């Protein structure tokens, strides 16, 4: 338990400032060779003797009651070994304890086209597919809910019989200080309405899982999952097995981006089928089925109202979001909170109100996609600020630079900011892009736009409440000088295995390639919660430092004895343990390990990490706190063809404050990859449905869901800013999600700079630009975007005074007579003028 209190801040400060041997270099990843020779075993590459193949029968209805299922003909087909329906797996599950609303196979109701209703295991995939066609399901169709606005206006029939009323899954109302007063004190109050379309992760690897059941009662599941620990828990719950009898092995993911972070139907189904048949069972989803797993970006309608002083200082902000959640809860409650959590961590917002709603709709469930719940509000906020800067006659870069959140501060909603490198980030992209010479000065059709953002480095709270560490590492030193690190983290391409190797190598003075990494295996590795919320480098890194330092202390003790030196004088580097004052005097690392092992037995240590407690103590304060916040600034260049509305992005400048780069090559890769995904969302990616045709996914294919190719991808000019955070391992913060966030708003702002039209919706498709240009030509408002935010029955607000108004992080009781949330429910046009005081 000592580990819980001791945070990185207690460690000697030299870890933030020291010169590093390995940390910060551009290194090959430890798994790079396996990947380039094709040796990495992804889930679908696992093949076991006598393996059966499973297929899922999915609902052809968006919303229907299941009246009956007759699987008898399928079961009778030659080659079919087992058929499952909902009644075989009656226990519900779900990633969040508050949303245990999924079944492996729908028992009585289907909630989207693609919802699994039955499963078959057969000797071949072909036979399993043929068997699906023989399963007869009788449905009674119900009225489908096509989108969030439809859900607001149609509370019945309900998709779920839980939630905050009708088809609204979750309603949030949080107030930090009196915003009305803040607006009254402003020189300019502006309101904007924006919409961020849903998009999906589209990992190149389709989800796959293989289950094996041993007659001694042990289940093993290999799965392309980002969260083996949560899959472990879900399997134990649904299959009613002891967790000790289940082993989940997360195979390296062929891309995840958040799309493999939920426990999924197919994982539970193959496990059950393996138990029933006594044979290994594999399932590999088709691309279309991957679209049905989804859990991607929530479509979000957003309304934002901000008051500013003439110099751009924000006096108050009110933000509303309405999320289209799809058919199940997934991470949705957290996603909804996230759409309101991080508005305060970039520019100082003294008073802040957030109202968020998530609707159930009859579409594949939304969840966490890279940036989880924050790219949408970031888009809204950064476009909104661009408009405010224009109204104030300020340069948008200057406006932002002037009002940055100070480092080591608390925000209105009680988030603790540590290091804050946004200032240098803005300066880098402004200087590098020639911003001052270009902004509002380029010829018609060419534009430049700026946006900033911040993202969490891991969530302060685990998904299910528990007092245990979020990440654990075990470390074992071999007599030969090798080291093995065991950690539950999951390699999804982000380089997490290498982070462990680099960090341990730094501490123990060995080569990263002397270190064997064992990860993502619930039998072998201590729990790490999973590869989500950009938590892995920080949390496993801190746990690895602790384990490695403990090992170093043991080894140093015995090396010091042998060398007749005080242990403090020993350094670990170049595979040696030596006297810092006389480096020639020392031992090889292997010899030092042997001395320690002879004296104390096997050199093995553990380390773990728990994030610091959050200062916010109101209901809802669990989403947003993080050990450290990363910062990004982005400038996008665009070419807009006024004849067609087609937007091209030749180049993006991006600066990212990563705290400390652990492996420079991975940092670059994560930043470039984030820009790529942000560009796709900005320009073309879209989960489209046919609301009028059974709410089918319009384009569930890699051809029609548009992912940028080499020909759309822009050049990227990357600046890595390092403002070390005391909570990060060696000061490191995240870089895998944050740099996505500023890309869509930067592109939108650049389009305005190029042709003078505001596209308040992503993706910014040619049709929208074209329409806005036509409106502009006709003298109408040069804008494309939403025009109304529906009336939502918001609950009573939770009122939490911000730190500077004397609060203690807790909510205060409601004052009688308050009429919460009525202001702004109807939008009187979205460009109110300057209000003079």
């Amino acid at each position: 338990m000592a580990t819980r209190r001791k945070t990185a801040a207690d460690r000697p400060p030299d870890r933030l400032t020291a010169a590093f041997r390995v940390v910060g270099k551009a290194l090959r990843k430890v798994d790079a060779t396996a990947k380039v020779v094709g040796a990495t075993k992804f889930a679908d590459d696992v093949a076991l003797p006598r393996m059966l193949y499973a297929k899922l029968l999915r609902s052809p209805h968006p919303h229907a009651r299941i009246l009956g299922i007759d699987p008898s003909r399928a079961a009778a087909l030659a080659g079919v070994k087992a058929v499952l329906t909902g009644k075989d797996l009656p226990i519900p599950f779900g990633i969040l304890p508050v949303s245990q609303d999924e079944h492996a196979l729908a028992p009585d109701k289907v909630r989207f086209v693609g919802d699994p209703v039955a499963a078959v295991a057969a000797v071949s995939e072909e036979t399993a597919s043929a068997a699906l066609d023989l399963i007869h399901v009788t449905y009674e169709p119900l009225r489908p809910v096509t989108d969030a606005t439809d859900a607001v206006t149609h509370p019945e029939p309900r998709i779920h019989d839980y939630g905050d009323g009708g088809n609204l899954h979750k309603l949030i109302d949080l107030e930090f200080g009196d915003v009305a007063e803040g607006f009254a004190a402003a020189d300019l109050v502006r309101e904007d309405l924006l919409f961020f379309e849903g998009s999906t992760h589209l990992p190149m690897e389709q989800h796959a899982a293989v289950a094996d059941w041993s007659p001694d009662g042990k289940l093993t599941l290999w799965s392309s999952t980002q969260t083996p620990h949560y899959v472990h828990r879900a399997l134990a719950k649904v299959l009613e097995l002891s967790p000790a009898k289940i082993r989940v092995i997360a195979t390296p993911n062929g891309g995840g981006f958040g799309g493999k972070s939920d426990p999924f139907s197919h994982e539970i189904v193959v496990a059950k089928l393996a138990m029933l048949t006594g044979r290994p069972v594999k399932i590999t989803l088709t691309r279309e089925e991957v679209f049905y797993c989804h859990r991607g970006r929530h479509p979000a309608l957003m309304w934002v109202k901000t008051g500013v002083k003439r110099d751009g200082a924000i006096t108050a902000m009110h933000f509303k979001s309405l999320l289209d959640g799809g058919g199940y809860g997934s991470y949705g409650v957290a996603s909804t909170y996230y759409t309101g959590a991080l508005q305060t961590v970039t520019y100082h917002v003294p008073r802040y109100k957030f109202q968020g709603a998530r609707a159930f709709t009859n579409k594949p469930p939304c969840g966490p996609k890279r940036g989880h719940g924050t790219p949408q509000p970031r888009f809204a906020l950064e476009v909104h600020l661009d408009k405010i800067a224009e109204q104030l006659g300020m340069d948008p870069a200057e406006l932002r630079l002037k009002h940055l959140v100070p480092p080591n501060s608390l925000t209105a909603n009680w988030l603790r900011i540590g290091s804050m490198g946004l200032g240098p980030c803005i300066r880098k992209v402004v200087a590098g892009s020639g911003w001052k010479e270009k902004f509002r000065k380029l010829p018609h059709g060419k534009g430049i736009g700026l946006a900033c953002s911040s993202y969490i480095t891991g969530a302060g709270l685990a998904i299910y409440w528990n007092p245990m560490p979020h990440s654990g590492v075990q470390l074992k030193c071999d007599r030969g000088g090798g080291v093995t690190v065991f950690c539950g983290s999951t390699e999804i391409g982000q380089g997490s295995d290498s982070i462990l190797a680099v960090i341990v190598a730094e501490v123990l003075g060995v080569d990263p390639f002397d270190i064997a990494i064992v990860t993502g295996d619930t039998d072998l590795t201590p729990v790490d919660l999973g590869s989500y919320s950009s938590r892995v480098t920080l949390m496993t890194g801190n746990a690895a430092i602790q384990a490695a330092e403990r090992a170093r202390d043991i080894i140093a003790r015995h090396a010091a004895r042998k060398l007749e030196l005080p242990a403090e004088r020993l350094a670990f580097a170049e595979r040696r343990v030596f006297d810092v004052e006389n480096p020639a005097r020392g031992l090889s690392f292997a010899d030092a390990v042997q001395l320690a092992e002879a004296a104390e037995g096997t050199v093995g240590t553990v380390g773990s990490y728990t994030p610091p407690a959050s200062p916010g103590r109101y209901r809802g304060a669990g989403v947003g706190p993080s050990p450290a916040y990363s910062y990004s600034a982005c400038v996008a260049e665009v070419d807009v063809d006024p004849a067609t509305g087609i937007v091209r992005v030749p180049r993006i400048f991006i600066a990212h404050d990563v705290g400390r780069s652990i492996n420079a090559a991975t940092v670059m890769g994560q930043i470039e990859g984030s820009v790529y995904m942000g560009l796709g969302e900005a320009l073309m990616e879209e989960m489209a449905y046919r609301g009028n045709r059974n709410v089918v996914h319009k384009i569930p294919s890699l051809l029609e869901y548009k992912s940028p190719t080499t020909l759309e991808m822009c050049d990227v000019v990357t600046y890595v800013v390092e403002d070390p955070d005391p909570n990060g391992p060696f000061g490191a913060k995240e870089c895998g999600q944050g740099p996505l966030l500023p890309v869509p708003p930067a592109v939108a702002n650049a389009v305005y700079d190029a042709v003078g039209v505001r596209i308040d919706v992503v993706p910014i498709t040619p049709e929208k630009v074209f329409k806005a240009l036509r409106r502009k030509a006709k003298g109408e408002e040069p804008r494309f975007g939403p025009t109304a935010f529906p009336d939502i029955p918001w609950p009573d607000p939770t009122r939490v005074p911000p730190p500077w108004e004397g609060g203690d992080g807790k909510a205060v009781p409601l004052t009688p007579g308050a009429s919460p949330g009525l202001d702004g429910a109807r939008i009187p046009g979205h460009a109110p003028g300057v209000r003079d005081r």
Partner: protein
Amino acid sequence: MPPLDAKAKIALELNGEPVEVAFAPHKTLLEVLREDLGLTGTKHGCELGECGTCAVLVDARPVLSCLVLGLACAGRRVKTVEGMAEGGRLHPLQDAFAELGAAQCGYCTPAFLLAAGALLAENRRPTRDQIKQALAGNLCRCTGYIKIYEAVELAAARMRGEKAQPARETLYGYP
């Protein structure tokens, strides 16, 4: 459901060696490689020709193995990622991909390597634009392609005998 197909047998040259393989006759080369020959280095993302992840070389040309019938490969020369390294040494492309982090999740990597290899076999000094064109049939969701271009350029230089090293901006960003 018709009875399971009787297997067909073909001979081909696979990664430089003659092999014989028997498989259900409707199988694509992708399936034959992965399931009947045990070479799982070839990946798949759609099985419909829409992503390029399954690319292999047939008679030295990169093609989509998900749309080539196994039976159509009788007597052909097939090369997969497993055949790129020689004598325990990485191909310069593989080496450069590993060095620069051009393989993140690594799932698209085998196909990119083979497509890039086919490009370099025809053009020892491709421009950035030619690289983009040659790789325009391969999707990658992780890298944003940039490290991939840089790796192809680095490997091309090394294959020309130059002692090339990655640029500082490639590995550490701009100052």
